[in-house]
């Protein structure tokens, strides 16, 4: 297998290539054709709700699960190919893996756990010892080598699992929700440490998580999965700002979502085109939500759009600006008035639920804002903060919002 098909979209070498993986567990379609690539030295996150197939993808790459169809290439070795009948055993795929349950062996000491990959590879004992010391220092467990592995806290077991996964300098490190069993504070700390370690060692990694912050913080690229399918793949910033589907938007915290119809296309609305968003940022359109409210936003999808077509409009509550009613409309801003239906004080900020005609908008105001229940309030949302998706996907959205 030469690297004729190994260059990725962005021109860099695609180090890991997963192509059209399918897996069926007695009737459950766990994977329905998953494809993505990982560039050398980068981290890709698989992000999605529980049960969407993330673990199955990871286990298929490690060789712990045999997919029904598809292909997996790591570096220049095809480790799995259903057409070519290739299926390498896990032990020869040369990867490291951190398991959700840590999978630290309880009958071994910390050092025996960490040194296992080297011992199995028959590395000389003296070298094993010095490398164990090095890697334990790296993960912050220096001096604990002689401890029985069961005498460790959750966070320490996590570090043992991490040390074991990197000590043999694998070409790929797989993480299956490594932080999900830790409590919130420790999770934040470990996340930062993991990031530092990754910068320092530069390993290629695939990181499975259902936590969007983890995915955004730790990876160069995020693959969002849903029901065994890839919903979208992008760099964290792009994904965060411009989700590609309603599902991705919802999963990444676009908590205002409305079904609407296209009221106008082009400059038909105000007759003025805002200079800040012209030039490749999309065509301005108006979307009517409910009976009376029409929001101005941008259509960035290259596809054709007709007036009256169903669309989905989404924006984040943090991007909604609140103000006193009666002020004047800035041109091009979506400014409306409604009444406060509920407000929740959270210290640094306050959550509001605002009713405006048939629309209910979630908004976040500063902690010292003082709109009371039933009070009139003005809110505005910038057109560039709105995402619009064509309405064919509305069914998927319904399923989501009911959850």
């Amino acid at each position, binding site marked *: 297998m030469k690297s004729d098909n190994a260059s990725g979209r962005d021109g860099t070498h695609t180090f890991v290539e997963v192509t059209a993986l399918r897996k069926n567990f007695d009737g459950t379609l766990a994977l329905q054709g998953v494809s993505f690539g990982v560039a050398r030295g980068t981290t890709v996150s698989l992000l999605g709700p529980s049960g969407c197939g993330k673990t199955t993808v990871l286990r298929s790459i*490690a060789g712990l699960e045999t997919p029904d169809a598809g292909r997996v290439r790591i570096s220049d070795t095809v480790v799995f190919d259903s057409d070519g009948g290739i299926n390498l*055993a896990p*032990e020869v*795929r040369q*990867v490291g*893996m951190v398991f959700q349950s840590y999978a630290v*062996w309880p009958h071994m000491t910390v050092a025996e756990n960490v040194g*296992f990959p080297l011992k*199995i590879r028959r590395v000389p004992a003296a070298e094993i010892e010095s490398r164990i010391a090095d890697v334990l220092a790296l993960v912050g467990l220096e001096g604990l080598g002689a401890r029985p592995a069961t005498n460790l806290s959750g966070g320490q077991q996590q570090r043992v699992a991490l040390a074991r996964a990197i000590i043999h300098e694998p070409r790929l490190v797989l993480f299956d929700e490594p932080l999900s069993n830790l409590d919130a504070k420790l999770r934040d700390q470990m996340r930062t440490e993991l990031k530092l370690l990754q910068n320092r060692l530069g390993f290629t990694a695939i990181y499975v998580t259902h936590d969007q912050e983890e995915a955004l913080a730790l990876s160069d690229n995020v693959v969002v999965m849903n029901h065994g399918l890839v919903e979208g793949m992008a760099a964290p910033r792009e994904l965060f700002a411009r989700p590609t589907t309603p599902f991705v938007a919802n999963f990444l915290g676009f908590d205002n979502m409305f079904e609407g119809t296209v009221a106008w296309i082009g400059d038909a609305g105000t007759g003025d085109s805002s200079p800040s968003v012209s030039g490749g940022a999309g065509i301005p359109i108006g979307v009517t939500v409910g009976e009376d409210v029409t929001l101005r936003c941008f259509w960035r999808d290259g596809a054709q759009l007709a007036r009256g077509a169903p669309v989905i409009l989404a924006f984040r509550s943090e991007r909604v600006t609140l103000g006193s009613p009666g002020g004047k409309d800035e041109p091009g801003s979506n400014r409306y008035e409604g009444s406060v239906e509920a407000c929740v004080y959270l210290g640094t900020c306050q959550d509001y639920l605002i009713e405006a005609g048939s629309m209910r908008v979630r908004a976040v105001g500063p902690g010292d804002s003082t709109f009371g229940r039933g009070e009139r309030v003005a809110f505005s949302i910038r057109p560039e903060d709105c995402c619009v998706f064509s309405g064919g996907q509305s069914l998927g959205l319904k399923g989501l919002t009911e959850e």
Partner: protein
Amino acid sequence: MKAGRGSGSLSGALAPAPTSGLGAKPWARNLLAPQILIPGIAVLVGVALVASPFLATVVRSALAGAEGALAPSLRNFTTLFQDERFYSALGITAVTGLAATLLSCFFGLTLAWIVARTDTPGRSWFDTLNLVPFFLSPFVGAVSWTYLAAPHAGLLNNAISRYLAGPGDLLNIFSIGGVIWVLALFYTPYVYLFVIGPMRRMDPALEDAARVHGAGFLLTVRHVTAPLMLPALFSGALVVFVTSAGLFDVPLALASPRAIPTIPTTVYSLVQYPSDYGRAATIGVLVMAITVFFALAQRAYLSRRSYATVTGKGYRPRTVQLGRWRYATLALELFYVLSGVVLPMIALIFVSLSSLWTGWPAFAYMTLGNFDQVLFHHDLARRALVNSLIVAVLGATIGVLLGTLQSYYLQRGRSRLRTIMDSVLSLPLGIPGIILGLGFLILLIRTPLYATLWIILIAYIARFLPLATRGISAMLLAIGGDLEESARANGASWAQTVRVIVLPLIKPALVAAWLMLFVIFIRELGATILLYGQGTETISVAMVILGEQNFGQVAALAVVQTLMLVAAFMLFRLTRSSILES
């Protein structure tokens, strides 16, 4: 801690000191409270049942001389240690116990792995079938194997000489090998039960981690799977070694006919005329010491290997795809089930239906006469059936009652003696039935209890009560004490709380313990053989007595006994599955 918060401690700590002239001190009043008094009595009964045969045996071993003129002396020990036959019996018992343990570890571990972790066809069936020998009588098993593998007379030997032109005495069940073989078949389910739980609960990621980090299948087994299973396997092996070495049934059926000496059969013959109780008691003391040593060793070993109980929650059981090897594992399963259950039962049924057994089924000799005899005419057999049923039903009921109270003390009591009591009460578990029977014989031979059903009942309960206590304790531990405390806090008395809250919750464990004791009491031979008298024979004793006269009636009696055991087994499976469902 939980138990310490029991209502008893609350009233003890918070109640003001009595000021009226009642005279009772608070601790005395506490001791008389029903929740302390009743379980306490059950524990004392248990201790007495353990201690009295122990002490009687020890005392008798230290007495020597003619009956009626016994004097303290160590002569029993010195003469025993000079007796060559004692050493050969000891050696043979150790060898058979050890070999049976190794073989049943092999079977138990492999079968558990096949059922729990592979895609072998029919796994769920085998999960039940592997346990069947656990409920059958080892004595009947050994007798059935003589129908299969006695030289020149066994079905298998005859089949070999007929169809394979082999010699007619290729298999000889009347040998040390035969004893080992039947013991291994019957103790395999013990190992199986010990290891299948940990095997099912083990986080498969532990093995996956080894695979991913470079170990192949066999290296993973060596470095991860095997060491993780070792504590459970070792515990099972210890139990199997102690109980199989002390089992009387199998050597009686297979070693005694060829005068091969073993420890249990030696004790038996020392009590027959001309008897030597002193020497029998001396052997008894040594066996008890060895058993206690093993029990302590097991405790010490397990407390060092605490990870034996470190298990995951909610792991998806993953099965190994065996491919063509599925047929090899299937063959091993079939081999075990055929050897342990199917073949012996077929042979037994053939013999029970034959008026004359020639080592080959002959339709000319087919008859129901044996059953007609043992069920309706033969006095000894009919008496034995009635006696066994009485002892089993009564014994299981008393056992469950005492076991419940003891568990309540062990799990909910607040006495500092609880951990010690736990050890003391479970001591009889490893003591061979015949040794405990000897203890009660020495103790009660001069009392009116001797040669009544009561002495048999007492010995049975003493020997097997810990099984009931353990099962019920586990259930009490699992449900915790909070529900009782809230009932007490809402004003229910202790008796009401037990009746309305505790008993309904532990009912599945009570039913299981009752059935377990019933099964054991129906088939027990070792604890009975020294204690029965004219008129108090049990089914197993009747088989021993009849064995010298009539093959067909022994087999018919064995079939009847087996039907009782199978019925109890089926009830047990039913209640167990209803426990799992709820």
